[in-house]
């Protein structure tokens, strides 16, 4: 499986994501600079976490204006899989590939801890290695992970089973509506999530629960 990780100034989990991809898929991803015109032909485009442009205007807002965005949108429209984590999720909502927005955490503080996620929809290309309803461990690390969308959008997301991950067992760390932790687009090729599965993929991390996402992708590509 070929993949690419987009690097924006201020991003800081691009190496974590690249390592997880290489670990599971066996191939190191292309690292694509935000100011490039084109993303190489790959099976997966990953948009990593961090603080692109310091998150100074709004999380992901300035990164959304990068030169690479045009090609990212084009490839997403063609059906290339796009995976946004944390700041990457925020960027994907800013550029309209995913609905809604991520607001400041309800308790206003940055939060880094392990939460429980329920795999609400295991029939996506990103989650088929998990069982439906499976509860997995996953770390979060964010200041603005409080998912918001208007009522109609939320209803649509729920009706269409596009809420893919939900904070489970009372571990919602940020006040997200309906405990939403990750969502997918209508076509099923763009997934955004706040938690960091890339930080739970090897024994030294204390668990392997995050691998499922990368394994799912590998499965559906191969």
């Amino acid at each position: 499986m070929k993949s690419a990780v987009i690097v924006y100034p201020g991003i800081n989990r691009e190496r974590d994501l690249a390592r997880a991809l290489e670990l599971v898929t066996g191939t190191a991803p292309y690292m694509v600079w935000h100011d490039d015109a084109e993303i190489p032909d790959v099976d997966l485009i990953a948009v990593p976490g961090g603080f692109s442009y310091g998150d100074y205007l709004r999380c992901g807002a300035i990164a959304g204006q990068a030169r690479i965005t045009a090609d990212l949108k084009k490839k997403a429209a063609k059906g290339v899989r796009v995976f946004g984590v944390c700041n990457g999720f925020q960027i994907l909502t800013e550029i309209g590939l995913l609905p809604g927005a991520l607001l400041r955490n309800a308790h206003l503080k940055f939060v880094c801890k392990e939460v429980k996620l329920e795999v609400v929809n295991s029939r996506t290309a990103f989650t088929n290695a998990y069982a439906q309803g499976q509860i997995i461990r996953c770390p979060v690390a964010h200041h603005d992970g409080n998912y918001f969308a208007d009522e109609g959008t939320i209803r649509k997301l729920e009706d269409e089973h596009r809420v893919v991950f939900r904070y489970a067992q009372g571990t919602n760390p940020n006040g997200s509506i309906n405990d939403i932790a990750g969502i997918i687009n209508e076509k099923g090729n763009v997934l955004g999530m706040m938690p960091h599965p890339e930080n739970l993929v090897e024994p030294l991390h204390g668990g392997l629960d995050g691998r499922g996402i990368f394994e799912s992708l590998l499965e559906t590509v191969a």
Partner: protein
Amino acid sequence: MKARIIVTLKNGVLDPQGKAIEHALGQLGFGGIGDVRQGKYFEVTLSEQDPAKARAQLEDACKKLFANTVIENYAIELDV
């Protein structure tokens, strides 16, 4: 030409920061100050001299960058 842009959260969008400020106001004895909604304020200078064109430019910039219209409204004040 100078202009000011004010970005506010739309009604119905949760504003935890505004709520925290309101809470703190109460503790400081400002119980009469309520409904706090936090926003952002920008000052800009435009090289465009024509007010209509300047406004159009700013409208565009607000939609594309200054505000996220999923959650935010904006207002433009132009010094004419």
